[in-house]
């Protein structure tokens, strides 16, 4: 299945893309994050939450259909 991965804030600078497609088998969010961290080791140094189709989810969430995955970092500035 195909996932659309969206990187927000500083994560887009870490990966140098703001959006990309990724082909993967059914997996959990944790497995997907591992895969992304292998591709972009610098993601290990940052904190972010995952949303699947605009819904924040935990690491155990199962991704089984085409979906939009957003990586959301916290912002501090004001």
């Amino acid at each position, binding site marked *: 299945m195909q996932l659309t991965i969206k990187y*927000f804030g*500083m994560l887009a600078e870490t990966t140098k893309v703001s959006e990309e497609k990724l082909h993967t088998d059914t997996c959990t969010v944790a497995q997907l994050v591992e895969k992304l961290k292998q591709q972009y080791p610098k993601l290990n140094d940052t*904190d972010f939450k995952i949303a699947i189709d*605009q819904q*924040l989810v935990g690491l155990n969430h199962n991704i089984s259909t085409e979906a939009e995955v957003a990586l959301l*970092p*916290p*912002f*501090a500035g*004001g």
Partner: protein
Amino acid sequence: MNLNNRYHRQAILPEIGEEGQKKLSESKVLVIGAGGLGCPVLQYLTAAGIGTIGIIDFDVVETSNLHRQILYGENLLGKNKALAAKNRLTDLNPEITINAYPEKLTTKNALSLFAQYDIIVDGTDNFSTRYLINDACVIAKKPLVYGAIFKFEGQVSVFNHQNGPSYRCLFPSPPKAGSVPSCAEIGVLGVLPGIIGSMQANEVLKIILDLGDILSGKLLMYDTLMSKFSTFSVNRVSSEISKVLAIADTFESVDYDLFCGIKQVTEITAQEAFLIRNAQFIDVRETHELPKIESLDPIYIPLGELKEQIKTIDKEKETIVFCQSGIRSKKAIEILEENGFKNVSHVKGGAIMLSEYPIVNEV
């Protein structure tokens, strides 16, 4: 209503009316931080006729603030922001009450201050204050209108509103210290806090007037370069709320700089242990010793076996050890540090103190 009335143009909106205007005039809003976000929040809330506005900021106006902190000008350089803002806002609307607090928000003053207001607005610029504000809002049961920015993007949400999620339900623990740059480090275009702060002011007015869909349970992201809004649903996580309520009685002594990893010490208190969640905990007591502190999900390695098993522990992670009363854990720190662990601390008073902080059920 008189056409020349200050509030005429908003009061003629049927959704607001004189009744809505009365609600605004009876409301009390506390704005924390009178900087990039705080300035537009304060201007619009003042102009709209919020009856009582509190402004807390310890900082002074600097030249580098002026491109985005639009309440201030050259003549206010070096002046405290809360007092300077009050002056400017009183001119904008002398009919309301403005309380300026030229001080730092701390765990000591937060709860008594929050108790005097209906809605809290977060316009701060660092994680330790953001977590402090969230926790104080959970404890004081006040809605929190949140805004934060990074370069060309902003976040807005309303937390702790009518049993909605809190900031911790979205981001349970702070990022590694220094991993998220501030506006001072990375820069910001002045319009961004103008937009995000205005959206915060809008949420405040919606809450008071009970209008539309409040951004509770939703994180709104705005990208100014792409002119794009994205909204994400956030669920309430009861265990996150419970953890905050569990420290309510000792909130004044929580060290949020420590929690956010800005400060490192080798000894932490039991309540701080419950708040630091990026860390790995090691229980160095013998297996039969009680009470077990399961809520911290510790690794169980008795002190006598620590050297043998040291390779099974992740050296890179922040590590917190505890024993029954805090004596063996000190010894464990020495062993860990001898083996290359850099960020190690132990819990003062050990499991005896930890067991006094049960995870209370949510009220």
